[in-house]
Each structure stands twice: as structure tokens, then as C-alpha cells.
């Protein structure tokens, strides 16, 4: 293939970048070897490309970026140096943070109370694990004892009340009696000789019944009156 100086100039960049076909590259190299002009051209352009690839980017002026930001998004407020010290305040000064801190303090107070630690007089010995376990154990037993005493007190009151006011049995159907019962008869004057065919009724009439009545002046002060029925 005839290769001339014009073809060398036209395909020089492809040859230097290695994208020229093998046959054309050989032809160009062979021509350059015999042509002083093309040989100098290949060396000059090859050296220039190599130098341009080694040139670093020129540094921009230091104020250029700030100037670009000012003309686009506007100038920024210049912060004072001391403002940086308090930049965390807005993040912390929120209701949820206060509520969280109060919750943590309440939980801590409960835990310390359960551990038997006196928050007004905390000692180093109070924080030892053995002392914490001992105090927590004592506090647990005290709490259980208070609860048990409360339940027992309730039970005593219930028993006293249940004994003083016994449950009345349901009355049976009145059996036909030979004599009509007077409606104005004082229960205290009722004769015990009058037989009652109903044994339960007899037991009820014979057994003394005590009812707590209101205090009267005839009684001893401070006592309850028992009225026997």
C-alpha cells in the first residue's frame, strides 16, 4: 500500500492512540521511517499528546465556589464562632426530651427505693452489689409483709361483722295454728309455754338473739345495749 505524507497527517491521531488497523499502522511506520518530515511530525505530536495528558487541572480561585453559591442559592449567614458551642441546644430543647428525662428520673428513683438506697445520703457502700441485693431482699419482704397484714386485717373485720349479724334462715310456710296470733303482742311477753309445731320457729324464739342497738343513757357509758328478744 502506498502511504504518503498526506495520509500520515490524516491518520496520525488514530496511529498515536493505537486505533489504526494493523496494516495501516505498519504502512505509516514504514513511511515515517523513510520520511524526515513525517518522522518529526509523529515525534512532535506524540510528545505533545503525552505532555497534555500530564498537565494538572488549574486550581480555581479560592472565592469562586462561595461566589457561585452566593449568586445561586444566596449568601449564607455568617455564624459567629461562639454560636457553634450552642448548636446542640435546639436539638435538646424539646418537650419529648424533657419527658424522656423525667421518665428516666422516675424509673431511677423507683429502682433506688427498691434497692433501699437513700438518695439524700448515698454512700459508696450502698452501690456494692452485695448491699444492693440485701437491701432489695429486705424491701421485698417488707412489702410482702405489709400486703399480708392488710389482707389479714380485712379478713378479721369481715369475720367480726359476719358473726355479729348472722345469716337469717328462710321462713317456712306458716302451718295452721289453733289460735290466731295477736298482732299487738309484745314479743317479750310471749309465753314460752305456747307450743309451736314448727321446731325451727321454736328454736328461733327460744334462742337468745342479740342485736346491737344504739347506746342509751341507762346503760353504762361506753357499752352497747343488748336487748334480749
Amino acid at each position, binding site marked *: 500500500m502506498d502511504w504518503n505524507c498526506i495520509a500520515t497527517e490524516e491518520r*496520525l491521531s488514530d496511529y498515536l492512540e493505537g486505533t489504526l488497523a494493523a496494516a495501516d499502522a505498519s504502512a505509516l511506520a514504514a513511511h515515517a521511517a523513510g520520511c524526515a518530515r513525517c518522522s518529526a511530525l509523529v515525534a512532535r505530536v506524540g510528545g*505533545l499528546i503525552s505532555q*497534555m*495528558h500530564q*498537565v494538572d487541572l488549574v486550581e480555581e480561585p479560592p472565592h469562586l465556589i462561595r461566589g*457561585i453559591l452566593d449568586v445561586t*442559592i444566596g449568601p449564607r449567614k455568617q455564624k459567629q464562632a461562639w454560636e457553634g458551642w450552642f448548636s446542640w441546644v435546639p436539638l435538646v430543647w424539646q418537650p419529648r426530651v424533657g419527658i424522656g428525662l423525667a421518665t428516666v428520673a422516675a424509673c431511677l428513683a423507683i429502682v433506688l427505693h427498691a434497692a433501699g438506697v437513700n438518695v439524700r445520703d448515698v454512700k459508696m457502700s450502698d452501690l456494692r452489689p452485695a448491699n444492693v441485693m440485701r437491701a432489695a431482699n429486705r424491701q421485698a419482704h417488707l412489702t410482702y409483709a405489709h400486703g399480708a397484714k392488710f389482707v389479714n386485717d380485712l379478713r378479721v373485720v369481715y369475720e367480726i361483722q359476719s358473726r355479729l349479724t348472722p345469716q337469717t334462715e328462710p321462713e317456712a310456710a306458716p302451718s295452721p295454728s289453733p289460735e290466731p296470733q295477736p298482732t299487738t303482742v309484745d314479743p317479750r311477753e310471749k309465753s314460752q309455754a305456747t307450743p309451736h309445731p314448727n321446731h325451727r320457729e321454736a328454736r328461733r324464739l327460744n334462742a337468745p338473739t342479740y342485736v346491737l342497738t344504739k347506746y342509751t343513757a341507762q346503760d353504762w357509758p361506753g357499752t352497747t345495749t343488748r336487748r334480749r328478744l
Partner: protein
Amino acid sequence: MQPDAQLVESCLRGEGLAWEELVRRHTRRVYNLCYRFTGNAASAEDLSQEVFLRVYRTLGSYQAAQGGFPTWLTSVTRNLLVDHYRRTRRDRLTDSIDDAMPQLEEKKAPGHAPDRLAMASELSAQLQRGLVRLSPDLREAVILRDLQGLEYNEIRKILGVPEGTVKSRINRGRIELARILEEMGVRPA
């Protein structure tokens, strides 16, 4: 690090931090493209601000399906550079290129071997002098390919021309730039 597409969505929702991240991430590339094309640091700074202002206003028109955000950003930058070039065509003929160059590091005494940073700085300055003498279409092609490191497909989308045209411009731009630097006495390493 969030992808650019996610940052764009966050910006559209009004998140200022996402926009700030986008600006910090792409400012240097945009500034370099403007600086290498104009050869003027002050113009590059003004154009960079103009680019991001336009991007900020038209961010809703960006669609990820059409390409990456850097490609779209570079396309906006290139369009503004073309407009700026047309506006300032008359002024360019009278300005001195050396007046617009950034301050270079002082050259060491001839007795001392130049260090790597000084060589790199000198090379950058010489390269810039050569670039501004290229025609605009060749200049932008070389900058996008060899200084920004973009692929042919991306450059095709940015310039809006066929890929064959892109390759042709890059090739001619490289050859022309090498010839200009040779005339200036700059030898390749």
C-alpha cells in the same frame, strides 16, 4: 459519595446542600475549560459563575437518559464559551496574551536544575499560549479530548457534530498546536 443524578434530584426538591455538593464537585473542571479556552483568568471566573447560574435555573431540563450530568454541564459551558467568543471577537485582537496569564512561579537561577513543579507550571503556561492561537473549533476539540479527557462519544454530544468530524478536528488541532509550539521554541519532552 452520591451520584450526580441523585444530587440533581435532591436539588430539584430544594435541598441546598445537594446543590453545594454539585458545585464543589464540578467547579474546577468548568473553570479549567473556561480558562483554557479564553486564556484569561478573570473571564474564566465570570464565565464559571455564569455557567452555574444557568445550570441552576435550567436544572429541571436535565434528563439523565440523555447522558451524564458532566456531559450536560460541559455542553452548557461550551455554549456560553461560544457566545462569549462571538461577543469579544473584536477585543481579542488588541489584548496581550501575557497580561491575561496567571502569575507563574519564579524561575530558578540558571545554575540550578528546575524542579518538577516549575517545569509543569512552565509547560502549562506555554501550552496556554499555543492554545489561544488555535482556531476556536480546533481549540475546543483539543481541550475536551486531551485536557478534559472526554471520550469521542461525549465530545460528539457536546459539539453536536458527527464523530468523524470530532476526530478530524482533534487531529488537525494537535498537528497545528505542535507546529505553533515549535515556532515558539517549545520542544516536546
